[in-house]
């Protein structure tokens, strides 16, 4: 009767996070607990979850095919914990979120992280839907909590409406998949579709609509419209978190969804994914050229990076997955470093690019580290971003997807313009106003610690390749 209860023993980090979720929402109601330091407890919970996740081994198919834990899910879960801890540090140095709401913020973050963990281990369509909603709904709330930007409620409303629409479309596509195959687990769907339905309109419709919901999370192109508004108006630490963590979770869900396909279906799936990747890269790079707000510009840049990562997903083999996992830690460092530098430099919450004029004179070390992060985002050689992009291009080349490589090359060159224009504003332009320092050196150290591995990995990236090699589905 309760024969799935032992399965919980294989999900210790999930249990820790669920307990944390309960704690953060109920803790405020109990008078004695209200005085405990919420941040310390949150970080301790993340550390415990990471340790438990690292001590797991083997691959398990849990809860009647709903959840699949393997080295793929374990390594990504550890990345989510690291990202969340870094974002908590960023929360400290930004006053855009009300510190009175810390318990609720950490509760929402716990729910988000739990949802991301389920997105990475989902092997059933309904689990994927539940996990996507578990990630989306707290992010709707977190985007709305910016007390310095009155537009954050509007941005959150746009995000909610768009997310509900995308979920509806995804459920419609999933209902088609269920109708065609009679099952909702990923493996049974591909077996059920078989070879006779490949190329039929309903095949493309069903998989395309399901892909719609996943690409909403990733902010891939037909479903990216919420991204610039939400990123611009959200509190900057939350923007940094959203630009990294749910995006990676969406990509892992895509990788796992498409992993078990039959060889005969591979070409059509690669075709669909490459079209999405091409359009995403091109739109993300070209739309960023005209932006005047730095958070919007970084939003479009993260859309373009999602396109590059989808290039690695589109090749649908282990090499592609390893290239994606190689790029993701680099992407995390680049993005978090860039956002932390912006938090430090933005005074009075003015995020227009012209407000950063001449920042190098008062903060040379910070702007240098920011320049490393930005040039790495652009893919310039001595830095790690170049190596990451190189691996993504390599796996696409080996599969023979030349239009995608062409589009990726064009969008990389185009993106160089707006990344370098950011540096030009900070380094060459005259100071328009004084930059009053925030009084603490920790943000500078943070950005430098993000930039140093980018320099190191750009020259010697073998350790990261060895780590990426350990990411295997079902092992």
């Amino acid at each position, binding site marked *: *009767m309760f024969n799935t209860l032992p399965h919980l023993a294989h999900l210790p980090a999930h249990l820790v996070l669920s307990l944390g979720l*309960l704690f953060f*929402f*109920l803790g*405020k*109601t109990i008078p004695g607990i209200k005085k405990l330091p919420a941040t310390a407890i949150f970080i301790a919970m993340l550390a415990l979850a990471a340790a438990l996740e690292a001590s797991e081994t083997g691959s398990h198919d849990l809860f009647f095919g709903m959840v699949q834990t393997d080295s793929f899910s374990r390594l990504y879960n550890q990345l989510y914990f690291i990202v969340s801890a870094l974002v908590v540090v960023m929360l400290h140095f930004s006053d855009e979120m009300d510190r*009175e709401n810390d318990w609720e913020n950490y509760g929402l973050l716990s729910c988000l992280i739990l949802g991301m963990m389920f997105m990475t281990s989902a092997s059933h369509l309904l689990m994927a839907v539940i996990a996507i909603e578990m990630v989306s709904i707290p992010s709707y709330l977190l985007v709305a909590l910016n007390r310095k930007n*009155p537009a954050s409620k509007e941005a959150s409303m746009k995000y909610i409406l768009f997310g509900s629409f995308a979920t509806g479309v995804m459920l419609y596509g999933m209902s088609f998949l269920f109708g065609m195959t009679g099952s909702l687990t990923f493996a049974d769907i591909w077996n059920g579709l078989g070879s006779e339905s490949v190329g039929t309109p309903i095949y493309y419709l069903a998989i395309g609509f399901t892909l719609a919901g996943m690409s909403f999370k990733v902010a891939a192109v037909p479903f990216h419209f919420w991204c610039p508004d939400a990123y611009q108006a959200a509190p900057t630490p939350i923007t940094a978190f959203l630009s990294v963590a749910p995006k990676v979770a969406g990509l892992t869900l895509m990788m796992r969804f498409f992993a078990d396909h039959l060889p005969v279906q591979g070409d059509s799936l690669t075709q669909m994914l490459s079209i999405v990747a091409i359009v995403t890269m091109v739109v993300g790079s070209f739309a960023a050229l005209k932006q005047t707000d730095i958070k919007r510009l970084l939003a479009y840049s993260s859309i373009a990076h999602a396109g590059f990562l989808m290039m690695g997903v589109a090749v649908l083999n282990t090499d592609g997955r390893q290239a994606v996992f190689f790029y993701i830690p680099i992407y995390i460092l680049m993005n978090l470093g860039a956002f932390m530098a912006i938090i430090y430099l933005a005074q009075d*919450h003015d995020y227009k690019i012209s407000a950063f004029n001449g920042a190098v004179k008062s903060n040379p070390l910070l702007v240098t580290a920011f320049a490393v992060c930005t040039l790495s985002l652009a893919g310039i050689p001595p830095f790690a971003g170049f190596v990451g992009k190189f691996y993504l291009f390599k796996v696409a080349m080996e599969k023979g997807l030349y239009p995608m490589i062409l589009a990726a090359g064009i969008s990389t060159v185009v993106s160089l313009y707006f990344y370098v224009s950011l540096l030009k504003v900070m380094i060459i332009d005259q100071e328009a106003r004084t930059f009053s320092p925030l009084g603490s050196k920790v943000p500078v150290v943070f950005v430098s610690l993000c930039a140093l591995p980018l320099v190191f990995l750009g020259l010697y990236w073998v350790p990261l390749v060895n780590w990426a090699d350990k990411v295997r589905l079902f092992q």
Partner: protein
Amino acid sequence: MLFNFGVALTFLIVMAGFVAGNLLVQLLLSPHNNYDAKKMPYDCGEEPVGSGYRQYNLRFYLVALVFVIFDVEIAFMYPVTAVFKDLTQDGWGLMAFVEIAIFVLILTVAFVYTWSEGGLDWIREQVKRPTSPRE
């Protein structure tokens, strides 16, 4: 299989056509006799006083929101109770009870949170906190 989709499509078209046809007939055949009193909003026969547009207090929305959430919870509990006797006879009684108890427990956490944070108070105390002027 495609034939069945065709049947569904025909059904949709006939449905839409029927509605459109009825409206068209009404447009052509009904008498047009517009006078001012017809266009005023209906207030059970009384004359409306003042403008209908005003800003409502947010507490009504909060009450409605909490109601909807717990009403849906009740709606989920009804099927469980309806088949509970049959489930017990098949030996699934304890499992069903634990499952629905977990569902109610999760919503009870939300209930405790909203009660303690003053979401159910009709009149909330004004907390004066120093906030920066909005831009």
